[in-house]
């Protein structure tokens, strides 16, 4: 039972890392980023390539850094240039990027499932309530919690954090205070994609690598964002934990319904509160 809950938290943590990136990007650019799952997947492959040479931790750092650069490029080249167009244009473009990235990965690494190693430092298990539990999974929980805590402190207590919260609510009013929202977006989109990369690397040893590995988890992340309330960081955190639990308990006790449970929860919550748990936007 306890093990089940912990496994749910692990999956919830991964969802949180993806969902918070989606929230950040949506907040500043009002873009629903369909390429986010592909960035998660690329992050995993980059980390894998370096980890396969025996440098697990360097793989993590390089992947996060590379994905941050990809995010900045994405913002400058796509989100910023398309901001005057209808949102649907940008959404379609992110969908195109997703397809391109999947093709690139298939060409470079092939379609076959690859196994991401666990770093030696985190190999093995600990006993929790008498059952063995992989240390690596505890590490995944720790990473998500660390990101959640530092992100919320950063947003709450720094100037940049204040500007990001302001711009997520109203970019126009924020820029009229003298804040260059385009520059802010560059940071925020870069951060969001870096977190997708982090999530990809950290998830690597838990899932097997394939060019489509990001698709399923991206759908769950979208559900998290919707349930949490578009634009809400705290809402995303709670929703990620909830979906993580439902995903895991569903897989164990209601396997036939596991994939639709998150959807059903989403629909239920939207009927109860159309803006999600903490949402102020519709």
């Amino acid at each position, binding site marked *: 039972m306890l093990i089940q809950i912990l496994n749910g938290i692990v999956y919830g943590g991964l969802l949180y890392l993806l969902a918070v990136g989606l929230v950040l990007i949506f907040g500043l650019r009002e873009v629903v980023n369909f390429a986010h799952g592909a960035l998660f997947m690329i992050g995993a492959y980059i980390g894998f390539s370096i980890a396969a040479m025996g440098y697990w931790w360097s793989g993590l750092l390089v992947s996060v850094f590379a994905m941050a650069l990809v995010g900045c490029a994405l913002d400058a080249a796509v989100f910023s240039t398309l901001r005057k167009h209808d949102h649907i244009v940008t959404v379609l473009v992110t969908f195109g990027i997703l397809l391109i990235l999947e093709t690139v990965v298939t060409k470079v690494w092939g379609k076959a499932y690859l196994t991401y190693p666990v770093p030696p430092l985190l190999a093995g298990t600990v006993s929790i309530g008498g059952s063995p539990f992989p240390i690596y999974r505890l590490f995944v929980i720790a990473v998500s919690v660390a990101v959640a805590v530092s992100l919320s402190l950063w947003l709450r207590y720094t100037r940049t954090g204040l500007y990001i919260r302001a711009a997520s609510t*109203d970019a126009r*009013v924020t820029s009229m205070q003298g804040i260059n929202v385009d520059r802010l977006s560059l940071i925020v989109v870069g951060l969001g994609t870096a977190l997708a990369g982090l999530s990809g690397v950290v998830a690597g040893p838990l899932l097997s690598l394939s060019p489509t590995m990001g698709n399923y988890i991206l759908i769950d992340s979208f559900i998290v964002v919707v349930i949490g309330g578009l634009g809400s960081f705290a809402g995303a955190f709670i929703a990620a934990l909830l979906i993580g639990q439902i995903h895991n308990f569903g897989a164990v006790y209601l396997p036939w319904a596991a994939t639709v449970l998150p959807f059903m929860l989403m629909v239920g919550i939207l009927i109860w509160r159309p803006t999600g748990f903490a949402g102020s936007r519709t």
Partner: protein
Amino acid sequence: MSLLAFNDVHALYGRARILNGVTFDVDAGERVALVGRNGVGKTTVVNTLCGVTRIGQGHVEIRGRTIKDLRGYTAAQNGIAIVMQGRGILPNLTVEENLLLGTATGRKGPWSLEKVQDLFPILRERRANPGLALSGGQQQMLAIGRALMANPDLLILDEPSEGLAPVVVDELAALLVRLGEDGIGILLIEQNISLIHRVAQRFYVLSKGAVAESGSLQNVTRDELERHIAI
């Protein structure tokens, strides 16, 4: 040299041309009114300054310098603070956070959080409340307070009297005159004749996207002003 000048500005939203040759200027420490009925393009003047519209002809000058690439942040970074129509309060930030946004440009001057809270004690009292929780009049104080936090040389207010009780409008008039006397230029965009008359020294009447009339308010009665606006 004027702080802000529009020279024969024609401006468009997409294909819709809304301003057809707007010319006006505001000097340092001057109190100028831009008046006109609903829909004549007053807010479009502000939007043009913020780069929301496309300028088809003419140009905007800030401190004598023509600015080609107007952006949302251009005015603020040049010492022009704007109190938007509808106030532009960020509803989910606290009152104090809303005020702190005003300091984003880091301009130095007499105004600080302390001073603004002295001017509007309610903003100190309710500093931890979300902006959303304020009444209309309090939101207007917050919007003006935030603009003052930027220590502007020019303060633009777009229909600040909208939705305010008459006594609050009286206080607003006195405040704007005082700020003007302290050396802040005021561009008051309004329809409220009484507020215009009490605050402004000069006026421009906007009609169908162009300046139809302008002059000093010294020798214009309220009735005459009302007739100018009605055309």
